[in-house]
C-alpha cells in the first residue's frame, strides 16, 4: 500500500552521491550540483510513481547528464547558473598537477558539456560510465541490457566525437 504512495527515497539515496558526482564534474560548483540532485530526485519520484526503472543507476545517469547539459546550454545562452558569480567553496584537491587554472577549467567543463551534448544518449551513458564510473564494458552492457560489442561501438564513436569537439585543445601543447 505504502509503496505506491511514497517514492523510494531509500533507493535514490543509494545513488545520490553518484548523481552529485556526475553533476559536479561537469558543473564544477557544489550548489549547482546539489540543485541537479534535487531536480533529478523529483524526476525519480515522479517516474517511480508510475514504474520504477529496472536499471536505476543507468536511468539516473541519463537523466542527470541530460539535466546538466540543459543547464550548460542555458548558461551559454545567457541565463547564468545560480552560483556562477560566487567562488566555488569546494576545493578541488583531487585535481592532479598540470590541470589548468580555474578559468580554463571552467572553459574545459563547458567544452566537455558541449561535446557530451552532441552525443546520443547511449553514447553519452557509455562514455561517462567508462571514463568517470570506471565500469568495465561487461558491466555497462549488463546495466544497459545490450551486448558488449554494442557498448564498445558506442564508446569508440563517443570518444571520436568528443575528440573532434576538443581538438582545439591539442594545440595547447597537448599534441598526441
Amino acid at each position, binding site marked *: 500500500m505504502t509503496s505506491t504512495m511514497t517514492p523510494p527515497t531509500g533507493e535514490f539515496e543509494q545513488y545520490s*552521491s553518484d548523481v552529485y558526482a556526475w553533476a559536479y564534474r561537469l558543473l564544477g560548483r557544489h550548489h549547482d550540483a546539489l540543485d541537479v540532485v534535487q531536480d533529478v*530526485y523529483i524526476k525519480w*519520484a515522479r517516474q517511480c510513481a508510475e514504474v520504477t526503472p529496472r536499471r536505476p543507476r543507468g536511468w539516473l545517469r541519463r537523466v542527470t547528464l541530460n539535466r546538466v547539459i540543459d543547464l550548460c546550454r542555458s548558461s551559454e545562452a545567457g541565463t547564468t547558473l545560480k552560483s556562477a558569480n560566487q567562488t566555488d567553496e569546494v576545493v578541488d584537491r583531487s585535481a592532479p598537477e598540470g590541470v589548468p587554472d580555474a578559468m580554463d577549467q571552467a572553459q574545459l567543463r563547458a567544452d566537455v558539456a558541449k561535446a557530451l551534448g552532441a552525443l546520443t544518449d547511449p553514447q553519452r551513458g557509455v562514455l561517462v560510465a567508462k571514463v568517470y564510473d570506471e565500469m568495465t*564494458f561487461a558491466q555497462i552492457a549488463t546495466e544497459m541490457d545490450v551486448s558488449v560489442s554494442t557498448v564498445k561501438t558506442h564508446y*569508440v564513436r563517443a570518444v571520436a566525437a568528443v575528440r573532434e569537439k576538443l581538438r582545439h585543445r591539442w594545440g595547447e601543447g597537448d599534441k598526441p
Partner: protein
Amino acid sequence: MICTDFEPLLADALGGELTAADEPKFYAHIAACASCRTAYQEGSSAVSVLRSLPGPQRVARDTDTVIGSADATKTGRPRAANALLRYAASVLVAFAAGYALSGARTPSPQDRTTAQRPSQKGLADGGSFRIALARVHQRNPSRSDLAKGMITLFGARR
C-alpha cells in the same frame, strides 16, 4: 576513418581493457595503419582531457539534506520557506542550548531538591526545567533540537 575490424580492439585499448593476448595484434595494426594510429592517439588524449575534470570532495551529507528538502518541496512548501524554517530552527536551537547550558552550569540550591522531570513546578521554575532539559539532551542527544527549542520557549512563557 578506422578499420571496422579494429574497432573492438581500439575500444579495449582506450578503455584500459586490452588483454595481453590482444596486445601484439593491436600494436601491429596501429604500426601499419595511420588512421587507426591517429584515432588511438587522439582518442587517448580525449579520454585524458575528460579524466582531468576533478570529481567532488564532499558528497553524501549534503545530498541527504537536498533530498529532504525536495520531499518537502513536493508536499507544497517552497524552498525559500524551507530555508526560513531551517534558519528559525537553528536560532531556537541556539537559544535552547544556551538555556540548557546555563541551567546545567549554575544550578540553584532548590534545583537539587526539585523533581527530575519537567513538571508544572518545573515550568514555573526555569532552573530545574533547564537542568531537566540538559539531562534529557545528555541521555538522548539525537532528539529533535527544534522540539527542545520549542519546549524551552513555550515552557518559559507559562
